[in-house]
């Protein structure tokens, strides 16, 4: 991947989760805010170290769900009244029956919005050109620290002292 590097910075990979977490804290405290931490699976220790606020994806779910309910009832009631036909002596717009649509559309729209939410939110931060190693999807934790060439040495130091097994510099 090194070939396609455009963001300059230092990439360190860790075997040990606590080491990685410590490194993250140190870096953040020493002013490196914009880290990228690669893990093969969600990891609470790392999340804690990074300390980002809770994802906003729930808003998508909420809005989607509400839209769904509204759409479900709105559509059915309006359509039934648009061309009123009596069936089985039931009222033209039979609310109890339409609960089904309210519910189903809530789930449908809600979950689609959630899925879209992931994409949108994750895309807000571009990872383009940040160094990456296949092993991060396997068993290692990677920390990429974007920095100018002069800061690089300092970063490398932090990483190695927290037990980074491999540090590469892309500048």
């Amino acid at each position, binding site marked *: 991947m090194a070939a396609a590097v455009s963001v300059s910075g230092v990439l360190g990979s860790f075997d040990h989760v606590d080491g990685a977490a410590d490194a993250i804290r140190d870096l953040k405290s020493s002013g490196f805010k914009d880290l990228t931490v690669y893990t093969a699976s969600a990891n609470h220790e790392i999340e804690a170290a990074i300390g980002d606020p809770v994802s906003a994806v729930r808003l998508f779910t909420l809005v989607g769900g509400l839209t769904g309910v509204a759409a479900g009832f709105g559509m059915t009631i309006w359509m039934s009244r648009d061309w009123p036909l009596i069936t089985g002596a039931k009222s033209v717009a039979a609310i109890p029956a339409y609960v089904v649509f309210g519910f189903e559309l809530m789930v449908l729209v809600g*979950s689609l919005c959630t899925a879209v939410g992931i994409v949108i939110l994750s895309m807000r931060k571009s990872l383009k050109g940040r160094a990456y190693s296949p092993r991060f999807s396997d068993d290692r934790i990677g920390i990429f620290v974007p920095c100018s060439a002069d800061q690089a040495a300092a970063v490398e130091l932090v990483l190695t002292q927290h037990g980074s097994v491999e540090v590469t510099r892309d500048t």
Partner: protein
Amino acid sequence: MAVIAHDPSMPTQTHAEVTRDVVRTITEKPERGYYILAGSMAFLTLVLFGTLGALLKYGLGLAGYSPPIMWSVYITTFVFWIGIGHAGTLISAILYLFRSRWRTAVYRSTEAMTVFAVMTAALFPIIHIGRQWLFYWLIPYPNQRFLWPNFKSPLMWDVFAISTYLTVSSTFLVIGLVPDIAAVRDHVSGWKKKVYGALSLGWTGADSQWRHYSRAYLYLAALATPLVLSVHSVVSWDFAMSIIPGWHGTIFAPYFVAGAIYSGIGMVLTLIIPLRKVLRIEHMITDYHFDNLAKLTLLTGSILFYSYSMEYFISWYSGSPFEQMTFWRRAFGPNWWAGWSMIICNAFVSQLLWFKKIRTSIPALFVISIFINIGMWFERWVIIAMSLTNDYVPYAWGQINPTWADWCILAGSFGWFGLWFTLFYKNFPIVAIQEIKEMIPMSRRKSHAGAH
């Protein structure tokens, strides 16, 4: 390791091993058996569409419908597959919310099964209608006729429930897959890398991605959970909303949901018992998991047992001659054998699972799972077709006798389902890599450094 050894839900291998073992199932060249399997499935799929073609050309008359039995094998099979489709989301969503750890090893396969089962089921409403080419009239799209569908019809509820379920469960599957595909991407080369790379949607496992991902997964699970329960309730209302004795039951919704999960897990067992052998992942899907699946089977099976007895009790207690006649004929009528095979296969056989010996004996489970599949198909057949043979006006009573067209579609549906599943398990991680890893504590340098 020793510390965690006696927690059977704990995977016994390291992150690296997990990746290796799972990726291996995809990368290693399939043996001849696989091609035979896939081939036969493809053939059955051809049978399915061939028969469908014939139905389109000559009409539903080819199938063994004889009034008053207006719904027969097709709707039966439809409900059967929808039922199958319930185990997946149950295991992946509900058990996820319950934080029951044993689901991790099996949920990917069951989720895949769910999606394909629903894809199969979704064919049937189209196959079974008289003018298949007009099925789109059930969709509320603006048209020059100013006509809308009738939302009071349970069949419309079905349309929405099924399509929602198909969408949501596939979303669920895909989202779960993305990180794993990324893992696969990083372990293959050449054109495969390109393909998986595209499919991984640029997943790198960066914190910014995990952050939203794990959150979203939670909400999806939260949405999917009521959905699972709703879908089969809606399907059951296709019948419960009618006035046909044997259909018109107030317990249908819970009764059908339980049955659905029961049948779903039956199918799960039928699939993963051979699967884990073929893919040599016995160490990932262990007796422990089967034991849990079996317990779930026992639970739902017992609910069925209760529902069956309730049906009979209520039909007697109702004092309605119509209800009583229907259920009397279920047990002692011309199709008594169907009625009893439903009760034996579902209510009785499941009770064997009280014994741990049976729960943990793979062959026994496999046999039982086959019984479950058969039994559940017959349950729907009995409820749907047999209730129709004798309703209100005796003069109009009839007999069921299916034809080749019925059986070909039934067999074909297994082919269609099987083809998808076969292709899936050989090309995608059949075990959820990242979730297993989530459970394996990562090594720490403080305390026991380099434990491995």
